[in-house]
């Protein structure tokens, strides 16, 4: 029946109409998992009892559908490892706020997906439990750190998924796997119960087959949480209300494609084409010259320092005493990041590196403030190119941060963004993504643009045009 190929919106609608049963849906999902998980290594753990948990939830908001959850969200009935040997065997005694909310809305956690260990990376290759392969082309990486979740969606091994992004970890794997990934404004979604990476940067967010799916999930995930002091009280709009509004009259700026590393590349062409699509749909589009803004090159250093500094502190609690295994179990990437972060905060160097990185962050915030006075949305690519082959990240001590250069500036500023598929190379079956960025709390605007793009192009595998 291929019920696993349904989108979240479709599944909810059909379940409520009783076109099929939840057991049938879960049966197809299980089949898909059995068929592909061994090869692709997407799920670290699958909940065999998931279908039982879905029982009688058809009339709830998420209708009992199976959702893949990145393994850095603490789930009470499923071991949580953040793909690290340090947490191998850890059974959380409490639930993350996000998964709690999803379950309260009728969603079911079907399994925990593979990721870069501790979210340190943009490939899912730094996982201590083996890399995940890109379902679009298994010789290639799915991206990271939410590679498992993006791949689960691409392979129809779930109905929808959630991941987390510090700088690129949702949008880049979504782009590489040809699915939709949404990074909310920092403070929009609670981090309580998520293994911390960069405290001032981490954003849990949805990864789905369509833009509408992400809007549906974001509705459930968003909101102030008493257990996370950095969540903001801003009222949460119904993200499914206005996403069909279109882009007429919107001012769109294209960023970074005139960067020397991107000029003439497939990304350059794809993003320019996306700009033309928006023009046709009634937006005013113009190129924001790199010379007029702060180049993303400085963001790499600032982001590397800030993120690794916070990482070094956040991972200090893993000493094997109260939980997990001792620190000799950290993988190479984790060790590198912890040590460099420690260095950046150390006596004599903190002012030189850490404080300066915070100052550069302020500059980006200022820069974006000015940009969003002139534009409603900024578009770019979440990644410098297509998915890279398996093995590309090894022996590269800065792979992650270099790959995420195009999203680091806006991530430092806490801005939201959504990645939608915008091109597919038929020879490799690999995808490029379009990153649509909005100002703080303006997810509705970017959803509207993303939806308009999705409906008027053929790149989405699940819409009528693309399927």
């Amino acid at each position, binding site marked *: 029946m291929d019920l696993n190929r349904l989108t979240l919106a479709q599944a909810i609608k059909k379940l409520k109409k009783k076109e099929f049963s939840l057991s049938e849906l879960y049966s197809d999902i299980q089949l898909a998992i059995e068929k592909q998980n061994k090869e692709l290594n997407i799920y670290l753990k699958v909940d065999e009892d998931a279908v039982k948990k879905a029982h009688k939830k058809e009339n709830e908001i998420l209708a009992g559908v199976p959702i893949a959850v990145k393994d850095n969200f603490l789930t009470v009935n499923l071991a949580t490892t953040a793909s690290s040997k340090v947490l191998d065997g850890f059974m959380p*005694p*409490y639930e993350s706020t996000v998964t709690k909310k999803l379950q309260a809305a009728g969603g079911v956690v079907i399994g925990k997906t593979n990721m870069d260990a501790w979210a340190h990376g943009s490939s899912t290759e730094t996982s201590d439990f083996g890399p995940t392969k890109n379902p679009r082309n298994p010789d290639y990486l799915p991206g990271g750190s939410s590679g498992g979740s993006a791949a689960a969606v691409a392979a129809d091994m779930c109905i929808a998924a959630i991941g987390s992004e510090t700088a690129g970890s949702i949008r880049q794997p979504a782009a590489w796997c040809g699915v939709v990934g949404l990074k909310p404004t920092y403070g929009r979604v609670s981090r*309580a119960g998520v*293994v911390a990476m960069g405290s001032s940067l981490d954003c849990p967010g949805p990864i789905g087959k369509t833009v509408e799916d992400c809007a549906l999930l974001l509705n459930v995930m968003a909101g102030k949480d008493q*257990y*996370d*002091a950095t969540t903001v009280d801003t009222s949460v709009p119904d993200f499914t209300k206005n996403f069909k509004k279109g882009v007429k009259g919107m001012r769109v700026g294209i960023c970074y494609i005139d960067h020397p590393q991107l000029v003439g590349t497939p990304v350059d062409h794809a993003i320019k084409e996306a700009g033309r699509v928006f023009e046709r749909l009634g937006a005013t589009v113009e190129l924001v010259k790199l010379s007029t803004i702060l180049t993303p090159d400085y963001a790499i250093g600032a982001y590397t320092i800030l993120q690794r500094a916070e990482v070094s502190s956040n991972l*200090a609690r893993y000493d094997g005493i109260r939980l997990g295994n001792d620190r000799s179990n950290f993988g190479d990437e984790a060790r590198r990041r912890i040590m460099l972060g420690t260095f950046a*905060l150390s006596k004599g160097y903190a002012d030189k590196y850490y404080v300066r990185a915070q100052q550069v962050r302020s500059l980006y915030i200022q820069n974006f403030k000015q940009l969003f006075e002139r534009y409603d949305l900024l578009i770019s690519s979440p990644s410098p190119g297509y998915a890279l082959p398996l093995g590309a990240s090894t022996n590269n001590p800065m792979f992650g941060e270099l790959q995420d250069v195009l999203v680091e500036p806006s991530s430092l500023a806490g801005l939201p963004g959504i990645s939608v598929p915008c091109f597919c190379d038929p020879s490799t079956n690999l995808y490029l993504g379009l990153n649509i960025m909005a100002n703080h709390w303006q997810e509705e605007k970017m959803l509207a643009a993303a939806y308009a793009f999705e409906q008027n192009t053929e790149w989405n595998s699940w819409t009528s045009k693309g399927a």
Partner: protein
Amino acid sequence: MKEKYENIIGLEIHVELKTVSKMFCGCKNDPFFASHPNIYTCPVCLGLPGGLPVPNRKAVEWTIMLGQALNCPDISPLLSKFDRKNYFYPDLPKGYQITQYDKSLCINGNLVIPIRELAERNPCLPAGRSPRMRETSNELRDSSHKNAQNDREKIIRIRRVHLEEDTGKLQHVTVDGKKVTLIDFNRSGVPLVEIVTEPDFRTLDEVDLFLKKLQRIIRYLDVSDADMEKGSMRLEPSISIRLVGSSKLPDYRVEIKNINSFRFVRKALEAEIERQAQGAKEQYQATRRYDEQTGTTMLMRRKEEAQDYRYFPEPDIPPMRFEKTYIEKLRNRLPELPDAKHARFMNMYSLNDQDSSLLTETRKFADYFEECIKVTKKIGLVDEISAKKIANWLINKRPDIEMVLPAQFIEEIRNAVTVVELSSEEITGAISTVLETKKQAVEDYKNGKEQALMFLLGQVIKELKGKGNKQTILEKLKERLASYGR
């Protein structure tokens, strides 16, 4: 000629706030009385993945108020934040402590201690010199010391009052023949106020007076039990010595840890001062640990090995900003503080310095005193029972103010007061009457029956219509009975 040295002492005091819940989470704040280890923990204070701190409003307010009570000036707007102090230790579950590094909630306070008390206490010695000091000089009235306000008082400056979280508790035991350390996280995350003074202390008596006064203020505010034995108040003094006549602060100081009760404060300080005096020229910056059993301090760490805490602003907690009206509201919530109450009692009730001090030792005692005065006003006995009389009674009798109501206590006084008016003759008269009429009881008593005495006493009191001091009557009765029949 032996060189004379003086002590330069500063204090770092930690006070556990007695909020209902912990500093950054909703766990119960009751580590000392917890029935079992690790029963008051949660993702936050246990340092589990994904645990995020959310600050306790009351703890913040109490800290500001404590700073105000310690004369820290109000700053508006008050800008403050929390920081991470990173280091590894088994009692620190997150691998960092959330504290305040450079923007404490309160700064630049002070506490005034009375020096005259000391002169009175050691009449044979120059002011402030403890008989045990041989080589070091503790010239109290150090005219070169810029903080001597006058002959009677000294100002101790308080550098900062900030808020942080407590650690878990360690216990070293042997299990199955192996030496291990047991960890209990009930105390992890309890709100802790840190008070740091300038090195203004010159004698141990000053330290003692300061601590007692600080304790009293804290208890007046009712923000902590400030009990050293229970760990709700902890002390780390820093000591160095310098030649008398020098005005520069020494270039080193030695921090002493592990002082577990008030009585060890003096011992530890004396031991360290003695040690430093022995090798005055070779001192260096270090942390030492007081050992109760040997009564000495032992080296833990030299300055060069000092830890790099890599402080940075706590990203999980937004900063704090308080406007003038809020700060003023907090100040208005302060109770009348010991000094003010002391002065008012002297003024209002014509009490002397000593009595007023004794009455204001605790807020409860002072309130009880004023309640008693209210009672006398109510029953119209203000002339017979003056505030001074009540004060004397309270100070000398020390009733259990938890059990005896002010009204009851006043009744006691009243009875005693009226008792004085009962003459000896009246009492002896009543006794005679009773002994005449209750001959059987007298026989019984003479034959050894003690209850008979009580019976007779009751009869005498009845005869006197309830007036008179029971004790006095009993004495007189016994006297008469002893000589009766001769």
